[in-house]
């Protein structure tokens, strides 16, 4: 029990100070019938550091890690190279083991990072402001829909078919309980995003239009046109970015007219982590700030006139507004925000641009090589670093067979849309600056053999 500093002598003396005869006297308010007489049965007792490490290493070894094989998965979770200094810095105890900055005088480190993060995200998204992070992209997407409902006082959310199905399901789950109407359909396997259908679907009951950019098939919708149509009907445009690195190459959603931009920040600094913890990004127009969910950090001065930072506008939050709060969120993804911010600080705008162009370059190479395989074609006519490959057969067993050959070859659309037979031949392929020519050749060779 290496994590417990008290020894039995301490315990006996402290019980004396407290005035209790034994430890269970301190549990006197627990009815005796509910007090466990000894350790919970069926579970092992404490283990040494070495034993735990061995156990966990054995479990880790049963997984095929992305970095050990040619790797092409995306669909809302992206692998990029994380500079060594990112992980070093987030492991500093003063960041890693700090709590929420409730006492700003001794939390300026965390608070300044959050202020810098908010500024970075706002500039990346092209919004006036951004909050200090949320759980992940999908929950941020739901919070944006709820926020649009508060602003427009309407209950109808229109989601483009290009929105990631897990994001759409998250929105639909929550909307079921809040009475919001959500319209979302699966995409068609077309090179053209559903912009026309979305624009045609906007009515004066629509609270928001939610458009993913780039979308789930790797296509680029015309955000400016959709923003104009939404605004004409009094609706807000919410843009969803699952791959923030893409914004190093293409125009920011805010600059194209989006009112709220949400996204997944995992791609920078955070890593794959089998799905979490990830990082919810959330930016919007400044006039909506009091309807915004989540934490905000603001600049102010201290009693001596020095610049400093505090959590602010907390009168929106649950601990003050209780059932009238703008969300029930009581935390943020502070450590993930720190990782994101450090990674983006190392890159700068120039580095992000170069990283996005490298990933794009690899995707062009991959698309060219894969489309040379008989029966295989590429859906998209433009993309950043992710595109859809059309196979002559169901992509799900192909992906499994590729993995048995040591290639993680992409995400089968059937995994994302199990009920949509029309999408089953689609394979989403993502690349990044980590992708090598050898990786591309390995994927293409394996795919040729599997399809032969």
């Amino acid at each position, binding site marked *: 029990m290496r994590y417990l500093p*008290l020894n039995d002598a301490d315990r006996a003396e402290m019980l004396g100070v*407290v005035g209790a005869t034994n430890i269970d*006297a301190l549990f006197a308010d627990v009815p005796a019938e*509910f007090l466990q007489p000894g350790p919970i049965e069926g579970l092992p007792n*404490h*283990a040494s550091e070495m*034993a*735990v490490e061995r156990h*966990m*290493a*054995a*479990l880790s070894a*049963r*997984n095929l890690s992305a970095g050990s094989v040619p790797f092409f998965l995306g*669909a809302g979770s992206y692998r990029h190279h994380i500079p060594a200094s990112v992980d070093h810095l987030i492991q*500093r*105890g*003063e*960041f*890693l*083991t*700090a*709590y929420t900055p409730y006492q700003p005088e*001794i*939390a300026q480190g965390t608070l300044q*990072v959050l202020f810098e993060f*908010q500024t970075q995200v706002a500039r*990346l998204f092209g919004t006036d*402001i951004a909050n200090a992070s949320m*759980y992940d992209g999908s929950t941020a997407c739901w919070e944006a829909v709820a926020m649009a409902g508060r602003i427009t006082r309407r209950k109808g959310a229109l989601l483009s078919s290009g929105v990631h199905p*897990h994001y759409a399901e998250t929105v639909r*789950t929550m909307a*079921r*309980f809040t*009475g919001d109407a959500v319209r979302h359909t699966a995409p068609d396997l077309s090179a053209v995003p559903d912009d026309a259908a979305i624009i045609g679907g906007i009515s004066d009951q629509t609270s928001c239009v939610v458009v993913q950019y780039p979308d789930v098939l790797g296509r*680029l919708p015309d955000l400016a046109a959709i923003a104009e149509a939404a605004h004409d009907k009094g609706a807000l445009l919410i843009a969803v970015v699952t791959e923030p690195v893409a914004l190093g190459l*293409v125009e920011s959603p805010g600059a194209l007219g989006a009112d709220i931009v949400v996204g997944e920040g995992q791609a920078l600094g955070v890593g*794959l982590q*089998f799905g979490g*913890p990830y990082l919810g990004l959330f930016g919007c127009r400044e006039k909506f700030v009091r309807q915004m969910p989540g934490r905000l*950090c603001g600049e102010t*001065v201290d009693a001596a006139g*020095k610049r400093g930072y505090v959590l*602010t506008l907390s009168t929106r939050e*649950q601990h003050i507004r209780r059932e009238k*709060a703008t969300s029930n*969120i*009581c935390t943020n993804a*502070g450590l993930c925000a*720190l990782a994101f911010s450090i990674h983006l*600080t*190392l890159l700068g*705008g*120039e580095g*992000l641009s*170069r990283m996005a162009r490298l990933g*794009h*370059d690899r995707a062009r190479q991959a698309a060219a090589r894969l489309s040379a395989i008989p029966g295989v074609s590429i859906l998209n006519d433009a993309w950043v670093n992710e595109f859809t490959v059309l196979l002559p057969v169901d992509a799900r067993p192909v992906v499994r067979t590729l993995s*048995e050959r040591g290639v993680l070859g992409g995400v089968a659309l059937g*995994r994302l849309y199990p009920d949509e037979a029309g999408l089953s031949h689609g394979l989403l392929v993502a690349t990044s600056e980590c992708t090598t020519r050898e990786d591309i050749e390995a994927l293409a060779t394996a795919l040729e053999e599997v399809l032969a």
Partner: protein
Amino acid sequence: MNDMNPSGWRPKMGGEPGGDAPGETFTGNRGLQLEEPLIFELGRMDGCGVDFDDDPGEPMAGLEKHLRGAPVAVPGLSEPETVRHYTRLSRQNYAIDLGIFPLGSCTMKHNPRLDERVARMPGFADVHPLQPQDTVRGALDVINQLAGWLIDLTGMHGVAMAPKAGAHGELCGLLCIRAALEARGDAREVVLVPESAHGTNPATAAFAGYRVESIPGTADGRVDVAALEARLGPDVAAVMITNPNTCGLFERDLKRIADAVHAAGGFVYCDGANFNAIVGKVRPGDLGVDAMHINLHKTFSTPHGGGGPGSGPVVLSEALSPYGPLPFTAKGADGVVHLVEEEDAKAMGHAHAFGRMAAFHGQMGMFTRALAYILSHGADGLRQVAEDAVLNANYVLRSLEGVLDAPYGSSGPCMHEALFSDDGLAQGFSTLDIAKGLIDEGFHPMTVYFPLVVHGAMLVEPTETESRAGLDQFIGALRSLAERARAGDEALKAAPVLAPRRRLDETQAARKPRLAWRGDRE
């Protein structure tokens, strides 16, 4: 774009150099207490601290109309500048690695570094959530092992691992309750929440579509059972209760409350934020709880990183287990742990799942840390955790009785946290002065002004990872501050004076919000 600070590094600090503070310096630094500019004042817009292997080509034809005109306007710093910037900032933070972090109801305890090493193993840190299941068997085993422990420790029937934080877990629990009620065609509208509950509880109930009604507390700091029972009826979907509660006390009558709620057709949600006080000693399932979230960072010590991430698995009673969200793990007839997603839910007998509440499968990086922590402690150690946490809290409570007012000091032993109030301080002195005075003494203050039911509340949670000597030093500091406040020591009202910043103007921050750096536009 020229929005860097032309002088490179000298910060615009607001205060004038040569002010009245002793030892004013040119840089604003004071020895090892360092001032640090923003990255926007340090870095150049064309700077970059990352080298790439080769040059990218031109973007493809067809992409032209989408391309951005200029790079994103964020500065880039070289690697040494970056390392130094964040290292310097880190030194302006208090953290559990530096000393006691006695935030009642928040629970900050030692974060073992073994857990960090484990979470970074490539089989956990570097696997994609949508890899074929045969390539992630170990990761699925982690989820399943942790889930099994959580079920055993709580005496419950099932567990939803998806929620991403404690408050997200509350939402998950209420959505399970709502789904179960809907399945029997029962449209109940009200959730009862005691006054002493966490602020997230009423917010969560409202977000799950319920009307919230408050239940008062008793003079001894617990739920008024008679008032609660009188309010029960066919419109009450659930009661949300925190046990041990936010006054640091065990709700003795929880089983009686649960029986009454169940008899009235409702469900009991327990806020499990304080589970660390009873882990291994009491199983909430035995008390009639239907759903309870477990903040892994609190009870099982995953690092909170200045505000998160959290992780809030929700344990469920037999009545609610069929309604948990997707995806989840389950052991199939083949003895292998499967990840159950939309496609398989019906086949795995889970047709009533209410859907997804987030993309992917929950906070895997927290699961590995929590599992390593649980394995390190084992069944015997976890029991010791609760006992030491409760012993430390009572030691603080009894050591400060007579020095600080303890409103429920005569209500019996406290659990994991000791509650004091500002009664008895001299006129004009408040809880805030004690808290800020603690900063000058080198401690992080306790939770202040919560719970709301106690005037000037000070909620101290030492946790089990504090030594007796450490507690004695903290108690001594609190005693000294209470005596200074009682003696009317005006200097205390200026505290802190030794921290990197004096008291910060929160009113100005809220009145004229500055939420992003705009130095280039001013």
